C-alpha cells in the first residue's frame, strides 16, 4: 500500500487589501495557518505529503502579474545533538575513527520553493536568512577544533541527512492558486522524526526578502504506537517481560497450529 495521505494544514485567508497598495504603502506580508496542529503517525504510515496553505497580503498587482513574488516554505524538525563519525582504514578494516559532535541540528529539514532557488534570490541572501539545508547554522560542540575538519564533517552531516531523505528540497513545491493564495506541499518521509516541527514561510519580491511567518506542527505517534513507545521507555522492565511472554506465546501457538508429532 503506497497510499500517500495528505494532511491539509489549513487555510488562513485574509481579505486582500482593497486599497491601491502603491498609495497606502502598506508593506506586503505573508500568512500561513494550520488547521490542525498535530499529525498522528499510525501503524500503516509510509510517509505522507504535507500541504500548507497560505496567503499573500497587500500584494502589488503589477508585480504579481509579472510573477515576481516568490515563496519558500520550510518545515524544520526538532533539534538534537548528533555525532558524525568517519571511517578510516586500520589493519585493512574500515573502522570508525574520528568523530565530531554537533549541537541542535534539526533532525529533518524540508524546503519547498516556487522555482529554482538561484532564480529567487542570490546566495548571500540565503546565507543571511540561514535558509536552505546548506545554510543552516550548525554548531560544533568542540568550537576550538580544526576548522577544516569541522567543515568536512559538517558537509558530511548535510550529505548523509540528504541521502537519508531527512533534508530535502522540492522545487516547484509552492504553487500560487490565485493572486494571493498559495499552496505548499512538503514530503514527510517514512522516517520523519516525532516532535515539534516548525513551518516557516519566506516571501520575496523581485529577489528581495520581505517577510517571514511561522507556525508550529506536532508530529506524534498515534494511539497504539505512542502508548507502546511510552510504555517501553517508562516501564522498560515490564515491557521486556511482556515482549518475552509474547515470544513464548507465539512459539507455543506455532507448535499447536502446526503440530507434527
Amino acid at each position, binding site marked *: 500500500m503506497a497510499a500517500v495521505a495528505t494532511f491539509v494544514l489549513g487555510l488562513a485567508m485574509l481579505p486582500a487589501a482593497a486599497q491601491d497598495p502603491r498609495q497606502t504603502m502598506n508593506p506586503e506580508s505573508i500568512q500561513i495557518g494550520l488547521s490542525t496542529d498535530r499529525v498522528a503517525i499510525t501503524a500503516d504510515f509510509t510517509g505522507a505529503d504535507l500541504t500548507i496553505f497560505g496567503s499573500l497580503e497587500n500584494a502589488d498587482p503589477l508585480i504579481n502579474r509579472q510573477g515576481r513574488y516568490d515563496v519558500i516554505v520550510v518545515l524544520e524538525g526538532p533539534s538534537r545533538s548528533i555525532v558524525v563519525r568517519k571511517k578510516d582504514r586500520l589493519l585493512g578494516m574500515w573502522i570508525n575513527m574520528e568523530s565530531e559532535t554537533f549541537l541542535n541540528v534539526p533532525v529533518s529539514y524540508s524546503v519547498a520553493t516556487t522555482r529554482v532557488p538561484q532564480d529567487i534570490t542570490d546566495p548571500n541572501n540565503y546565507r543571511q536568512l540561514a535558509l536552505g539545508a546548506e545554510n543552516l547554522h550548525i554548531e560544533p560542540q568542540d568550537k576550538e577544533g580544526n576548522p577544516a575538519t569541522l567543515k568536512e564533517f559538517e558537509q558530511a552531516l548535510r550529505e548523509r541527512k540528504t541521502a537519508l531523505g531527512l533534508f530535502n528540497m522540492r522545487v516547484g513545491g509552492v504553487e500560487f492558486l490565485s493572486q494571493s493564495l498559495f499552496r505548499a506541499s512538503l514530503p514527510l518521509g517514512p522516517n520523519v*522524526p516525532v516532535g515539534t516541527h516548525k513551518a516557516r514561510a519566506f516571501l520575496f519580491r523581485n529577489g528581495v526578502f520581505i517577510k517571514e511567518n511561522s507556525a508550529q506542527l506536532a508530529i506524534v505517534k498515534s494511539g497504539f504506537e505512542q502508548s507502546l513507545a511510552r510504555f517501553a521507555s517508562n516501564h522498560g522492565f515490564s515491557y521486556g517481560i511482556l515482549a518475552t511472554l509474547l515470544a513464548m506465546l*507465539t512459539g507455543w501457538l506455532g507448535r499447536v497450529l502446526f503440530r507434527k508429532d
Partner: protein
Amino acid sequence: MGIYLPIAELSVNVFVLLAMGAAVGFLSGMFGVGGGFLITPLLIFYNIPPAIAVATGANQVIASSFSGALAHFKRGTLDFKLGTVLLGGGILGSTVGIYVFSLLRDLGQLDLFISLLYVVLLGSVGGLMLVESVNAIRVSRGAGAPATLKRPGQHNWIHRLPLKMRFRASKLFVSVIPVIGLGAAIGFLSSIMGVGGGFIMVPALIYLLKVPTNVVVGTSLFQIIFVAAYTTIVHATANQTVDVVLAFVLMVGGVIGAQYGAKAGQKLRGEQLRALLALLVLAVALRLGFDLFVRPVTLFSLAGPDI
C-alpha cells in the same frame, strides 16, 4: 504494505519482514538452529539500527527456541540439570555483555564489534563444521556406515578439572567450570550479537563436554530460551531497544517458515544438513567480512539519540 515500528521509529515493508522471518524460520526448522545469527545481520542489511536489530533478534530467538524446546521436553531429550548450570553461566555472561554493548555503542564501535564477532565466530564454526561434515560424507560413502559424531571413551583436559558434578540425563561426570564458562560465553554473545548461540553451544557440548547427541539440542534450546529472555528484558530495561512490533512480525514469519523447513530437513541426511548449514554460516561471515574490508560507499555515518 508499510508498517511503522514504534521503537525503531521508522516505517518498513511488512512483507519484506515476513519473508525475512519465513526464510530464517525455514532454515532454522531445517537445521534445528534458532536462526538469530541470520536475523540480526539481515535486519542490519535492511537498515534497522544495529542496537535495535540485536535486542529484537534476542526477542525473536525466544519464540523459535520455545517452540523447539517444547518438542524436546515432550520426548524427554532434555537435561534440566545441565541446562540449569549452563543457564547460571549464561546470565553472568549476558550481564557483562549488555554492559559492554552500551559501552561500545557510546564509543561508536558497536557495529564494528558486532561484525568482527560475526566474522570470527561464524567463519571458524562454519569452517570447522564444513570440514567435519565433508569428512563424514566421505566416510559414509566409503564405508556405507552412518558416521557417528560421538567417540566415547576419549577424554580431554576438560575432564581433569576439579568441582565435578554428575549429570544423569547426559550420563556425564564433569567439572562445572567448563559448563559455566561455556554458558557465560554464549550469554555474552547472546547480548552482543542478538543470537541464541545454538550454533556454538551444540558443537561445544558435543565435542568439548561429550554430551550425548540426543540431549544436546533440547538442552541447548532450554538454556537459550532463558538467556534470550534475560537478554531481552535487560536490553528493554537498560537500552530501550526491543521493538515488539518488529519482533512479532519476524516471529510470525519464522513460525510458519520453520514448519516447512522441518519437513525439508527430514529428507536430508545429518552430515549433508551440517555441510549445508556450514556453507550458509560461511556465506553470512563472508558477507559481513566483505563489508569490513571493502571501502564503504560513504566513510561518514551519523549517530545520535534519534538515528
